[in-house]
């Protein structure tokens, strides 16, 4: 466990050290960026719409009972921007992209492709890890921004069509505007930027240490997803603490 943490910190350091070489890998960054963004966009759209909707549905009637039904806009706005969008999208990306990264790098490790890279004097960190991490660090904050917007829309639609809440969409957004500040959205986006590095490092590390055959690859994929989620939730607490100040 501690050895893994040490290795991940080392991998992070080496990847950051390789950042000056990113221009050379621009084609691979774009390819990964497209993979992450394009393939996740629809899923994120659907998930975020219903996430925003369900927050409105759960909180709206309770607020309405207390005569605070106008506050649902602000509540959905803050919840989506600061917590739900960054956490849920990062977990989604860990499951969808992180697992694919661990599987791809893991199978390259098992089938000696990484050894082949090294014999060609090609650094696996430059070739495999760096483009994935940079693409993830760029794509996830953008996806989270998109998720926040769609989540707000989902909340607004549900709040307007649910009889117990019954707020016009315009009032929903007026209330949200008075509560949600730019820094709240920035907090969420910043969190997602940190989570992107966590997902990337954990997944690439698991791939690089894969041993054995297909079973080993499967084990690495599972570990990559589970460890990413655990670390995302832990770091979310730490980051929230820091950002509150």
């Amino acid at each position, binding site marked *: 466990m501690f050895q893994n943490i040490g290795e991940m910190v080392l991998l992070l350091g080496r990847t950051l050290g390789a950042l000056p070489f990113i221009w050379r890998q621009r084609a691979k960054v774009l390819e990964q960026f497209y993979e992450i963004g394009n393939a996740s966009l629809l899923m994120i759209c659907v998930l975020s719409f219903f996430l925003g909707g369900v927050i409105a549905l759960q909180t709206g009637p309770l607020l309405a009972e207390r005569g605070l039904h106008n506050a649902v806009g602000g509540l959905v706005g803050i919840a989506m921007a600061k917590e739900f969008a960054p956490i849920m999208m990062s977990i989604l990306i860990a499951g969808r992209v992180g697992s694919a990264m661990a599987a791809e790098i893991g199978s390259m490790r098992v089938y*000696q492709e990484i050894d082949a890279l*090294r*014999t060609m*004097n*090609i650094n696996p960190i430059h070739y495999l890890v760096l483009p994935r991490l940079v693409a993830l660090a760029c794509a996830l904050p953008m996806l989270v921004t998109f998720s926040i917007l769609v989540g707000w829309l989902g909340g607004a639609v549900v709040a307007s069509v649910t009889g117990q809440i019954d707020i016009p969409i315009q009032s929903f957004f007026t209330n949200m505007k008075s509560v949600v500040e730019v820094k709240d959205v920035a907090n969420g986006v910043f969190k997602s930027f940190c989570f992107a590095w966590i997902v990337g490092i954990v997944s690439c590390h698991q791939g690089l240490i894969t041993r054995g055959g297909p079973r080993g690859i499967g084990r690495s994929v599972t570990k990559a997803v589970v460890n990413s989620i655990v670390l995302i939730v832990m770091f979310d607490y730490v980051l929230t603490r820091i950002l509150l100040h």
Partner: protein
Amino acid sequence: MNAPPNAHQGVGVQMRGVRRSFGKQEVLKGIDLEVQAGEIFVLMGPSGSGKSVLLRHVIGLEVPDAGEILVNGESILTPGVMDKFRMAMVFQSGALFNSLTVGENVGLYLSEHQLKSPTEIARIVAEKLAVVGLKGTEEKFPSELSGGMKKRAAIARALVSEPQLILYDEPTSELDPISAVVIGEEIRTLNQRIGVTSLVVSHDRDLAFGIAHRIAVIHEGEILAVGSPDEVRRSHHPVIREFLHADFHREKTSL
């Protein structure tokens, strides 16, 4: 196949007291070997004798617990040696990148190190594929190739860096006898054409005696014999005799 044709491009490899253990198991027990520049040297032995592990040490994929490996007198672990001497390895599985086309696989060294323009890389790739008899396969994926073709594509990939030393890990394993002969011929032709030093690890007796200038026999991490194919064939060492003469139809006692 007695003397190496020329040694103008190849490099020499010296292994001195190379030891390596994995856990409690000592896989290499103090290997001393010298591969001369420009020769085809075959390291032969039964499965699990430490051949491939030794090969991985020669190209720096593994670090020995003790001893050293020198390329033209310089330790393989010295920073910069891998840049100074061009070395390539053909893996047992081929280790082609499955997500890249054959052309991209072969040209990877040049494109990643930005040594040539894309047009020049395409020309070199076509040329190297033609050398190994795979002309026109640039756009195929490794999964579309047969085992023998994969091995030949891996050789083409190794050739792109114009290596001074090529390491072959079981180049004829999993191949039918005809493909095995083709691969053996290719190793020999390359050696004759460019004088590259070739270190071949194999348990294929036909390949070893067919292409080698010299042969070493390794067993349980120890070198049992080194010499020309004829010298090894004449060895009286019981393990070597058993290995060389193992046959379905022959009793061990009749050896």
